[in-house]
Structures are given as structure tokens and as C-alpha cells.
């Protein structure tokens, strides 16, 4: 068990370290992540959604559908715990 775990970790770690080298420099304002989609959020969020906090604007408006999924996840977890942990009442079932 432990041997397999260490083997998997070595493989994963090797791949991750291999990948880091060619990543865009950390914190570079001109990296693709900061220059392709997100500038529009920063520029437009206030104007279009009247929310000074850009994270909230994107969370609740641009990507509101993700947030709906997120609440559904919480609901799923809650109902799931009810389903699993509820004990049988006396006189019901076996």
C-alpha cells in the first residue's frame, strides 16, 4: 500500500515539477490568465452590475450559474447526510 502510494506521489510530483518550468512568470500582469478574459470583468463590472466588488459581480452575475450549482452542491450534501444518518424509527422497516 505504502509503496504504491509513494510511487504514485513520485509520478505526480515529477509531472507537476516538469510542468512548472514553462509556466508564465508568477504575478506577471501580462500573462494570458490576466490579459484575456479578466480585464473585461475589471473594467465593466462596476458599470454593468453596479457592484464595487468585482468578485461578487462575477460570482453573482457573469458566472451566476456556477453559484447556482454551488448552492445545489450544499443542498445535495445536506439531503445526502439526512439520507445516510437518519435512523430507522421503531416499528418501521426491520
Amino acid at each position, binding site marked *: *500500500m*505504502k509503496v*504504491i*502510494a*509513494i510511487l*504514485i*506521489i513520485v509520478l*505526480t*510530483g515529477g509531472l*507537476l*515539477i516538469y510542468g*512548472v518550468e514553462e*509556466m508564465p*512568470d*508568477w*504575478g*506577471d*500582469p501580462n500573462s494570458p*490568465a*490576466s490579459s484575456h*478574459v*479578466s*480585464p473585461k*470583468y*475589471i*473594467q465593466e*463590472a*462596476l*458599470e454593468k452590475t*453596479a457592484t*464595487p*466588488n*468585482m*468578485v461578487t*459581480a*462575477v*460570482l453573482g452575475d457573469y*458566472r451566476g450559474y*456556477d*453559484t447556482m*450549482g*454551488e448552492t445545489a*452542491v*450544499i443542498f*445535495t*450534501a445536506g439531503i*445526502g*447526510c439526512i439520507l*445516510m*444518518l437518519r435512523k430507522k424509527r421503531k416499528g418501521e422497516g426491520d
Partner: protein
Amino acid sequence: MLEYIISKYNFWVYIILLLIGLYAMLGKKNLVKKLIGMNIFQSAVILFYVSIGVKKGGATVPIFMGDAHAAHGHGQAIIDVASYINPLPHVLMLTAIVVSIATTGVALAVLILIFRRYKTLELDEIIKIRKDTGV
């Protein structure tokens, strides 16, 4: 070399945390330990995403700092992109944190079911009981 390591230190930290979590999930025998590993593993991924959003050179938190009402009223807010951090990874991670806690909650409920059935949380003991009873 040292400069190279330091220039990307948070990526190294995220890799270390991810591997610690992965090791705990696969190698530890106690089931609670596996779940602790799962939490570390998921927060390592979140750390990676947060690192993507960072912008150096005077950028600050993604909250509009000026007079929001005035700027909105005129509809003319000229906002310098370079002065705010990329908000998108943060949005994604808000969702991911909640998802990870929901997963932990469900996993802990399953854990309690396991404990009710086998009266132990050690992987090897459970496997032994399962072999003995032929389940």
C-alpha cells in the same frame, strides 16, 4: 538556481501540499487521516488557483476603490486593469471551497456509517473483518 526556486516559491509550496495530501489519501490507514489528507489536497489546488490570480506591480484587491456612486452615476468609470488583481480565479475558488467542504461532510457521514458497522476506523482491520465475514 536559488533565484529560480524563489521566483516561483508558491508553486513549489502548492506541489508539496498536494503531494502531502495525496500521500495521506493513499498511504494512511486511518480513514479520518485520509479525509484530512483530502482537505489538504483540495486546498492545495485552491492555493494554485489563487496564485494564478496574483498580479505584481501595485495591483490590489479586486474591489473598486474610488467613489463607486459617482463613477457609476456618470457611467464613465475609467478603471486601470493593472491596478486590480484578476478576480476570476477567486470566483472559481469560492465555489471550490464550498464543494470541498460539502464533499468532506458527505464523507464524514459515510465514515460514521462505517464505524457503526465495523466499530473501527483502521483500514486493515476493516479489510480483515470483511474477509472473515465474506462480504
